[in-house]
């Protein structure tokens, strides 16, 4: 299996189109799928993903989530929700329970460590009682926080290489990779943010990442309803000589 992780925003560009894409996800290439819950202010997403949220909000109904996870769970692909904490904290419901019932294996919460750092020591163990909390780190996450948050969780770790999705910033890939791998030996760490080409996917895997998350890159296929293009993309990744284990 190729360690690819795909990100989709729920109900983008429409419920039906997204379902057809999820139906085409190839379990030989894709290890996990992340579904973003549409958000009016996806603060830490880049321009391409932000635009999907504003479209998706018009179509979004929570009941669609179960339809998506059913398709993926049917293929044996663990599916994770990506949701801002702000949204759920306002609703005052146990969002872990809610998402678990909808068929998700765990949750990624991009604003938790930046905006709710005081509460994270309480929230993370609570979520971990229900399902998996997937820590979301980036190069700006302090060492101390990387270590303490990881120790509260059991599953994999999402490492965003760039400060925002879908933006090309020059950064020292080797340096940022090395830091997290050195801090968390033995943990499954999947890298994302700003990965655009199969060559970059290979580079990231060679540096020791366990998998590669792709999001902005898929938006073009979704927007154009280009299911064939999406299939070909998966084939191209499968056929690229990726030598990660």
């Amino acid at each position: 299996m190729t360690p690819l992780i795909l990100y989709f925003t729920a109900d983008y560009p429409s419920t039906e189109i997204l379902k057809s894409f999820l139906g085409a996800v190839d379990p030989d290439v894709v290890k996990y799928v992340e579904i973003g819950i549409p958000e009016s202010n996806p603060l830490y997403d880049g321009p391409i993903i932000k635009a999907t949220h504003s479209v998706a909000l018009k179509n979004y109904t929570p009941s669609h989530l179960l339809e998506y996870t059913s398709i993926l769970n049917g293929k044996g692909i663990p599916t994770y929700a990506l949701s801002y904490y702000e949204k759920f904290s306002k609703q005052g419901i146990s969002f872990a329970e809610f998402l678990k019932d909808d068929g998700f294996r765990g949750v990624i919460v991009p604003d938790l460590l930046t905006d709710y750092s005081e509460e994270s020591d309480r929230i993370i163990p609570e979520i971990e009682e229900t399902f998996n909390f997937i820590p979301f780190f980036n190069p700006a996450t302090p060492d101390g926080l990387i270590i303490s948050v990881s120790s509260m969780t059991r599953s994999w770790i999402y490492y965003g290489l760039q400060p925002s999705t879908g933006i090309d910033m020059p950064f020292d890939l080797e340096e940022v990779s090395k830091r997290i791998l050195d801090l968390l030996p033995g943990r499954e760490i999947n890298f994302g943010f700003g990965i655009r080409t199969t060559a970059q996917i290979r580079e990231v895997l060679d540096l020791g990442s366990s998998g590669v998350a792709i999001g902005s890159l898929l938006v073009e296929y979704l927007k154009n309803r280009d299911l064939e293009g999406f299939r070909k993309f998966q084939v191209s990744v499968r056929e690229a000589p990726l030598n990660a284990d």
Partner: protein
Amino acid sequence: MLSTQDTAIIPHEWYNVVPDLPRQLPPPVDRDEKNSSIQLLNRILPKTILKQEFTFQRYTKIPEEVQEIYAQIGRPTPLFRANGLEKALDYKGKILVKYEGATITGSHKINTAIPQAFYTRDEGSTGVVTETGAGQWGTATTVAASMAGITSKIFMVKVSFNQKPLRKNIMELYGGEIVPSPSTETEFGRQVLAKAPDHPGTLGIAISEAVEYALEKDLKYMLGSVFNSVLTHQSVIGLESEKQLEILGEEPDVMIGCVGGGSNFGGFVFPLMKKFKEAKIFASTASEVPKFTKGEYKYDYVDTAKILPSIKMYTLGSDFVPEKIYAGGLRYHGAAPSISMLVNSGKIKSSDVTESSVIDALKLFARSQGIVAAPESGHAIATAIEYARANGNSRETILVNVSGHGLLDMSIFQR
């Protein structure tokens, strides 16, 4: 003989505080869905600066060439015991001063101007553009650009331009081109002038003009403060201080610096904070620009035209127009995100200082130590004096960063 001014004290690596912060630094964000202001940084900043800005490496090697120039421009700067000031205050503890006014341009600003100008040259650009408030940053930029063999253009906040005519002369002597801001050279400047022909200018407006000009003319924009990479370059101040304190056998109980955008303060305090964990830390700001006490900790724009990204910081609002105080370098509406976070968490205490107590502090410092400090630095000195007076018998060691000299800012004493 042991000396605190041996060139061996100049560090070989810069220090970036971000990996050692207690919380995660909120990233810069875009407000506009269509045009990414973060993406735009690619067009106006050298790649190496962007890499430093977003890689968050704890230590970055200082290029050999930059290390050599650091020695030529007066590094290491002195760290000395201010016996005269201690006596004048009848203070029972010690007051130590790190003096960035001893660089050739008279302030810490040269520490980051040099690497930025050299990266610009190395990446094949022909010139740099930036803003300046008091003129210290503009002066450093013009020297650094000339040393790198590239051109420099400076938008100088109009109120300072009028208060400090010598600044223009010195920047021109160093080979720069200076315009008062708001100016008619940019769309944004023309808009401001159309609404308010007598606008005194602000750093936020001057930044906007410089960025617009850089985009238009395909030049590189020099970051004077606020950005993480600038604080990293300025870490030479604190790293040198660490070695100098070791030579002197001293340990600070209190560390004080002034905050405009936060570069001298962060550069000074961050490397020392690691070692002197218990030391009390004070950030001095101008009462007229009370960002930490009256500002809000939230996402706000770096510049008034909202061309640059939003960052999470203490801010008085990107359209805040401060009074025409002499400490032009402290008139900025916000402060670096890392410093803002630590003020918010309570690790750094803030102290607002009035212009009249700054003038008193500058006089006392001049008469007891012989140094005419910059008005910005006068805020840090005033906070130190206030602390020493309030804790006369405490025997604590106070370490103050005096970010610049004030020999070109003498008009502050003429009122």
